[in-house]
Every structure is written in structure tokens, then in C-alpha cells.
């Protein structure tokens, strides 16, 4: 059985009367690339900030590698890397100076070959001053600082903002490679394609609550199908209904597209008594599943 790396139990955070997150329960196992998805304001960053002890929970507990995120924060941070969604490195420093500064906190020896390897992978000039860097290059600095000390857990909060597609692809390659060497990844994003591409497990957060935590393939297969039907006549398309019809995506002339969560055999049986000219049943994309949960 896999050991849990992140274990969140009944975690809530309120900002005065405003809800941050409510009764969040979440388990991330060792070696996973775990997707944490939700729209802006859903509570992704709040959860991450509690894990990193930047903010304190109103109630509940969170553990990383069995250690309490408040009481054993220092020990945890020795083992964790973090890419914030929006943070600045010290503008007056050169990139290499900043990276060495970060590394010294971990009491790690300056690993120049690794620093150079990561910098060349992302085509980043270590001798430039942070203040001279573009947003994309600052993100590269952020990626490198998170990996230099070889963390066991990497927490990412919208990590690809500002990166061009080529760099995104290199970043994903790097994540996959580090994951193969044992690093667990907690990947928070609202860009579903990248979560779909990388993650095996996913949790969806909505209005501060986890509404689904599932294996990404199971989530797709088990629950929802995307159905397109072209009827022989328009009235059939207009009046069509069936148990399990979740959400109509498109209804135009003789065509009908919808999300379906019912029994597929019953759907086929139901349609067998109707005049149709085409039927397509397919797996919805993660984005469509996501949108379904957010309707």
C-alpha cells in the first residue's frame, strides 16, 4: 500500500466570515502526480498556503509525510519544493546568486552541475539580474529554485503561467522524469489539458469544497459520456429526454449533444425505437467533465 505524502483532514479556512475552504479531505500518495483543479477562487491556493504554513487553518489538520504542517513546518520544508503562481525573486540579485541563496537554507552544497543542467534545459542565463528578466524567465527561475535541493514533494500552483509552449513541454518532461525518480507532485491548475496530460489522480475543488477525488481515467470512464445524436426529424431532437441526461451541450435542428451519466445500454435501447441517422458516444475531455461539475 502506498504511503500518503499529503494527508488533509477536515481542513477549513475562513477569512472573517468569508469562506476560504470548508472541510477539505484529501490524500496524495507517494509517487503520484496529483492534479488539483478548480476555477479561480475555489480554494486551491488557500489549501496550498496552509500546507506550506503561510496561513493557518481555522480548523482541521494537514500532514506532509506524516508531519504536522504547523508544528513540523521546518522539517517539512527541507523535503518540499514549491513553485508559486505569482512571486518575485529578489530583484537586485543575479539569478545564480538567488538560487544559491535559496539552496543555502537547505544546508545543501551548491550543486553547480544541476543548476547549470536545469538552466540550460530552460535556456536561462544565470548571470542576468532578476530585475532584467521577463515574466517567463522569472517563472523559469521559480521552477529551478523549487528543484535544486531535490525535494521529495513538489507543490505547484499554476506553474506554467508565462511559459511558452516549448518551455511548458520541457517542464512537463522534467516533471515526469523527476516523478520517475520518486518525487511526488501536487499540481494545482485551472488549465485542464496539462492536468489531463500529467496527472493520474485528480481532485476537483468547488467553492471551497472537494467535490470529486478520483483516478483521472476512472473519472472519465465511470461517470460521464458525451453523446451526439442526429435524429431523422427535428421534433424528436426537441422532445428527447432520458434518465441520466445531465447537461445539454447543443440542440440545433435535428442534432442533439449532451452529457450522459446513466446506463449506456438503456440509452441504446431507448434510441432503438427512434429514427436516428447518426450516434456518437465518446469520452468527454477533462474540461467537459470539469464544466459539468461547475454547472
Amino acid at each position: 500500500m502506498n504511503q500518503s505524502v499529503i494527508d488533509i483532514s477536515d481542513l477549513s479556512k475562513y477569512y472573517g466570515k468569508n469562506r476560504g475552504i470548508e472541510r477539505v479531505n484529501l490524500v496524495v500518495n507517494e509517487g503520484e502526480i496529483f492534479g488539483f483543479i478548480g476555477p479561480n477562487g475555489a480554494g486551491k491556493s488557500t489549501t496550498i498556503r496552509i500546507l506550506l504554513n503561510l496561513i493557518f487553518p481555522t480548523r482541521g489538520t494537514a500532514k506532509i509525510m506524516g508531519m504536522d504542517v504547523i508544528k513540523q513546518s521546518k522539517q517539512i520544508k527541507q523535503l518540499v519544493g514549491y513553485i508559486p503562481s505569482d512571486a518575485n525573486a529578489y530583484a537586485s540579485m543575479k539569478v545564480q546568486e538567488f538560487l544559491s541563496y535559496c539552496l543555502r537554507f537547505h544546508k545543501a552544497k551548491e550543486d553547480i552541475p544541476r543548476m547549470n543542467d536545469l538552466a540550460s534545459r530552460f535556456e536561462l542565463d544565470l548571470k542576468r539580474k532578476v530585475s532584467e528578466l521577463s515574466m517567463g524567465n522569472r517563472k523559469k527561475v521559480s521552477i529551478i529554485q523549487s528543484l535544486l535541493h531535490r525535494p521529495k514533494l513538489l507543490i505547484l500552483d499554476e506553474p506554467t503561467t508565462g511559459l511558452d509552449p516549448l518551455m511548458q513541454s520541457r517542464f512537463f518532461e522534467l516533471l515526469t522524469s523527476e516523478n520517475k525518480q520518486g518525487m511526488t507532485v501536487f499540481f494545482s491548475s485551472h488549465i485542464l489539458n496539462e492536468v489531463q496530460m500529467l496527472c493520474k489522480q485528480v481532485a476537483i475543488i468547488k467553492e471551497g469544497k472537494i467535490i470529486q477525488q478520483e483516478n483521472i481515467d476512472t473519472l472519465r470512464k465511470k461517470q460521464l459520456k458525451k453523446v451526439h445524436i442526429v435524429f431523422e426529424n427535428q421534433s424528436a431532437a426537441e422532445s428527447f429526454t432520458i434518465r441520466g441526461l445531465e447537461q445539454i451541450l447543443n440542440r440545433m435542428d435535428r442534432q442533439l449533444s449532451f452529457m450522459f451519466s446513466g446506463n449506456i445500454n438503456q440509452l441504446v435501447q431507448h434510441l432503438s425505437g427512434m429514427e436516428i441517422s447518426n450516434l456518437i458516444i465518446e469520452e468527454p475531455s477533462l474540461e467537459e467533465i470539469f464544466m459539468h461539475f461547475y454547472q
Partner: protein
Amino acid sequence: MNLNLLFKELQRNALSFTLWTLVISVLVSLTMSFFPTFLQNQSKVMGMMTVIPKEALQFKGISNFSDMLSPLGFYSVNNIIYMMVLGSIFSVVIASNIILKEEYNKTAEYLMVRPITRGEIFMSKLAVVIFFIFLLNLVTALIGYSTIKLVHSGPFNSKSFVVLSAYTFLLNTLFGAAGLFISTLVKRPKPITTLGIGMVLFFYFIYTLSKITESATQIGYLSPFKFVRLDAGSPEYKLEPWHLLYFLGISIILLTISYRIYRRKDIYT
């Protein structure tokens, strides 16, 4: 305490410290260089002083004109503006920004995810604040001392000079502690430099108001400036134990509360 953070903070604040020290030192030296001219023209100056209202002189810190005829008296009258007010502004500015700037510059998310406790961050930054306040006081006092020696060849009470310098350091430290305290209360990060400067000027204003208005004497006790003895020319001049207790007590209380708040504070960037 974390040495990595400590050295980086020393480096980061060195320029600001140098500029402040330079400005205060130049002002102190320039003012003291007028002392011989002041002595030579004391009868003319005395005549001028009689025209100026007593309250206006007291506002400037001159309660007795004859005090200014000694080098230490002349130094202490000017010292209150340059070293006490400007030094306190430096202290409050450096202290109020040293933690808060990590938040409003959005660097806190890089610092606070390192294996370092909040207590270590606080203590390292506090050490830098105290070090710079001490160094500013040491350098400006040495420059003040040298300038007095340059412009005045007669006898001069070094012990009183040291006591006056100790008062300045204690006052600056108290404002440093107040700056740190205010910065830990800020919920949404933004620079509070103006607030800090305003606080020093407000307390200085209260102090001067209490000196020039008889009915407002008591209000002066709200200001830390009230607890600084400026009569350095007086033979009984010394560091009052209860003044020492006041400065150390308030500073320690403010720092302890700040430390406790910072350890439980939600950090936003």
C-alpha cells in the same frame, strides 16, 4: 537565528544605512562647525534670542540659552533634531520594512517555504535592525565627538556625551521596536514608511507641545522624547534608571508582542 538570512539582510540594507548615516553625520558636523562662530558672536545671538518668543526657543529644545554656550549643550540641542528625530525615522523605516517588504515585494513565498522557522526569520531580521541602529548611533556619535574635539579645545565632559549617546540609541531602538510592531499588524501588505515617519513626528510634536504649553505638560509623557534628558551640560547629568527601564521595557514588550503575532500571522503576497 539564520546566518544566511542575516548576511543577506545586512547586504540588502547596507546602502540605505550608509545614506542615512552620511546625511546625519554631515548635518551634525556642519552644525558643530558653527559653534566657534556662535561663541564669538554670543552677545549678538543673545540679543536675537531675546526677540524670539520663549515658546519658539523651547520648540527648538532650548530651555536655557546659557546651555548652548557649552559644546555639549550646543550639541545636544541640535542632536535632538538630527540624531534623535532623524535617527528614529531611520529606525522606524528600516524596522517597519524589513519583514513587511518580503510580503509586498512578493518574495515571502520564496523565503517562507525554506526550512526556517518564523521565529528564526524574526530574530535574524531583528538582529539586523538592532545592528544598524547601533552602528548608526556609533558612527554619528563618533563623528559628533570628533567634531566637538575639533571645534573646542577646552574641557569637555565625555561621560555626559556617552550618556546622551546612550539616550539617543535607546530612543532609536524604541522606535525600531515600534516599527516592527506596526508591520506585524498590517494585514494586507503595503509599505508603511509614511505611517512610521508620521509616528515619529507625531511623538516629537507632542513632546514639543508639552514643553511650550503649560497646560499640556502631562501629555508629554505619552511621547518617548519626554524620557530623554537633554540637559547634557548639567553637572548632575546621567542616565536615569527609570528612563532606562522605560525604554528597555517598552521595547521588549513591543518586540515580544510582535514576535508572537508574527509567528501566528497569515502571510499574503
